[in-house]
């Protein structure tokens, strides 16, 4: 199953999210007396008719308005047992969130499925500007598949 994430196909899904988010600066909210809120974003991958076995996705807030404070597992059983991994080096040095996961489950999701949920801290009065880059999506055999990625504010649990 390791091959599932070893195959690379670049699929870009770029979107901008305008939301009622506030800007965070590098020094945190408290120094600016900015209001702090915690919000969540659902990350979806739509694999169409293909089964989704693995993925890697790059998420970047161009406005630097948010800070990730948790990465939650996906909705489908195949991705619900363990939250996706994130790349600590990229997060630490570049501020981007690179998520990756694979599943060895018999049943894999098709169509649009929530693969992760990002818990973010936001503050200030500037909207965030998220950009998603689906680096790779693969099926159960590790073969690249065509898919798109989107993110929307999470509702409920």
């Amino acid at each position, binding site marked *: 199953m390791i091959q599932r994430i070893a195959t690379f196909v670049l699929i870009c899904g770029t979107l901008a999210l305008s939301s009622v988010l506030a800007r965070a600066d590098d020094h945190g909210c408290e120094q600016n007396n900015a209001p702090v809120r915690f919000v969540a974003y659902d990350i979806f991958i739509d694999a169409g008719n293909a089964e989704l076995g693995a993925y890697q996705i790059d998420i970047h807030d161009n406005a630097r308005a948010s800070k990730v404070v*948790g*990465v939650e597992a996906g909705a489908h059983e195949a991705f619900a047992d363990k939250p996706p991994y994130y790349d600590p080096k990229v997060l630490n040095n570049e501020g981007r969130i690179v998520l990756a996961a694979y599943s060895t489950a018999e049943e894999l999701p098709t169509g649009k499925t929530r693969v992760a949920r990002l818990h973010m801290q936001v503050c200030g009065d500037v909207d965030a500007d998220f950009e998603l880059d689906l680096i790779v999506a693969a099926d159960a055999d590790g073969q690249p598949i065509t898919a798109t990625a989107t993110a929307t504010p999470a509702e409920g649990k």
Partner: protein
Amino acid sequence: MRLNKKNRTVALIALPVFLTGALAASYFLACAQSDRAAGPQIESAREAPVEKQELQDSMASADDWRRDDAEDEIAAGQPNRRLQVGTPAQTQLDGNTTQYDADVGYIAEGEADESKDAFGVPFGQPGLVAPPVATRAPAARKSIPSRGGRVELNSRAAARLRAGAQWQGFDGGVDHRAQLTRYPGALPSEDEELWIIQRVTTERRAKPVGDDHPGCGALLAKLPQQDKQVPVPLEHTDVNASISAYIATVDVTQKYANPFDRKIEAVYVFPLPQNAAINEFIMTVGERKIRGIIRDRDEAQQIYNQAKRAGKVASLLTQERPNVFTQKVANIEPGKKIDINIKYFHTLAYDDGWYEWVFPMVVGPRFNPPGSTDGIGAVPRGGRGTSGQSTEVAYLAPNERSGHDISLQVAVNAGVSIERIKSVNHVIENSAGSGTERIVKLSSRDSIPNKDFVLRYKVAGDRIKSALLTHQGDDGAGYFSMMIYPPEEIGRLSRQPVEMIFVLDCSGSMRGKPIEQAKAAITRGLRSLQANDTFQVIRFSNNASQFGDRPVIASRENIRDAVRYVENLDGGGGTMMIEGIKAALDFPHDDERLRFVTFLTDGFIGNESQILAAIHDKLDASRIFSFGVGSSPNRFLMNRMAKMGNGAVAYLSLNDSGADVMDHFFERISHPALTDLNIDWGGMQVSDVYPERVPDLFVGRPVIVTGRYSGIPSGRIRVTGNVGDRISEVVINPHEDRGAHEGLAAVWARTKIADMVDRSMWQQTGDIATQIKQLALDYSLMSQFTAFVAVDSLSQTAGDFGTSVRVPVPTPDGVDYDTTVTGSSGS
């Protein structure tokens, strides 16, 4: 600053406190009081200006204390000495009786830093305190009837009391009145004043009442014993480990639940192996699993506090010592459960055919030298803030039990046939497996987490082969770990004469079986010396003393006398290990002999850095062999002392034979070590190899080095070293590794951090701190400068963030609670 009178005295202070009305006599009124203290009202009250003149007078009197004290000291027959009293520990004996125990010390005026109290805490700061853990003096006890059923010292006020004087203070609308009463035989005299100074927390937080009970309702665990049942927010710990070759992967799941009727924050201080590379943290809320993020420690703390204030379920994991961690879980609503999963990797110890895997279960009660504030304090359950240390562990009294238990399973894949397997401290269920594999479970009959779980298994053959393990990381970088086993030939050589220094910890925490074990080991060691050896026996607690003026020849008479000397030693007093270090290392080296210094101690101290730095400075030609004594010794300190002292570590549990452990040690030192090791990596391109200085090799005891490599390992690796005036060689074939070792990157990074931390003890730490933080962030590793934080942003709990409830833990098996926690019987 130092206390120049070690034999602390005991003061008994009667503070009959009159709470408003019949507060404590009434359950409902007690509830009301509990609510006030635990909820936001207290926060408001704490920030409100003090209105009562009596309290202001009491605080203001701190300005002129010196003049009066001087007069009183003379009157008390203690010229030039100042009396200081620690925060009294209070115990409710029954509805009308409260017992106060306080530690008292004198300080010489000429030596004192006048801006600080006798325990090194600056005057004039909020939170002024004289921490009782600085003394742990024997304490007499008296029962003092109080007119209220509940006693609470004003949390902000400095009470300056003269015998017969009254004091009144207010806190949160509660009227506190106290009167100092002198009892025969107890300090102070009628001419002396006592200062009773209660710590004030600077962090804004809800304050628990009494024994960390928020509200009045709680679901108590049902236990078969007659012991008092204590509700705790940690129900269960589950440990699942797998071992492949000499690398362990361990999953620890802490199951938190709120048994109270109010929202709480759970705080748990717990141990993990000192070389654990923690790189995964997952919080489970209901069915949802949220991976924690590694952050700069301050940043993580800030995120956690903001989430807590916002009513979000959140968790924070911080490192207090390489082997001591604090887990906080915020906003646990009544009846709700939250799991925290921690994953780590570490290498196993190997010694003469036996591998050893350890899971520590409890942090032992530490002694902190006077003046220290960044140690790890030991307090009774409900005694928050009384130790004066930045980290505190709350201990259950001997007659108390919590429902927290532990389950543990270890899957061993040794790769070679396992001949024997045993648990040192626990009852286990050893399932059948193939010749090379075993699954071991902790018996449910032995699930109280009050001692280290120590699993030892013997693999086939007298010795293992030196081996190299490799792993290719996701980023393409290669990581390796190499176990270097000493060449067989050094086992055939005899040693030089030795100068053997036995150093025995005689502090209160060693009292009982631990010190008896240690004495048996030293006695065996003395009788194992050869006629041309010399030896010395040093004991330390509050100070150090020794058997002879200098090391003496190992004659029959000297050994007989030394054995008698050892037999008469007992545990009591503090753990001023620095005194033992000085006594053992501060005298000229005998060039004719190899000097071996053996420390036998539980290592229950909070100033490890000071001790290790002293060893670094004073070591010279000595080698240090540390023996961790007891059921839960401070393994971080033991390992680092041995590493820094170019020696080795061994453990003497309560179930081990002291004689056997010492025999094993003598077997090791009966042959010369392979020193000045040099590694020729052949065709392997390596970098960042740690430890930077490869330790010496002793018979039966391999060392492990880790590093990074590029390309494909090729050729043969040759390790050479000196055995006396000869050169010896070990050859390793890098092609024999066929395993998958995903933890190697984390193990390498953790080893590098440990190496940098060691260096920071005697070098400027600024740059090293930055490097450690960067490395830990890059590898998602726990360190003293990083922390894991997880927030469930979708959760929204109602109301204030509730009361902080610490998880009290049992004292380690064999460690006396009264001696080490309350200080009431001589530590």
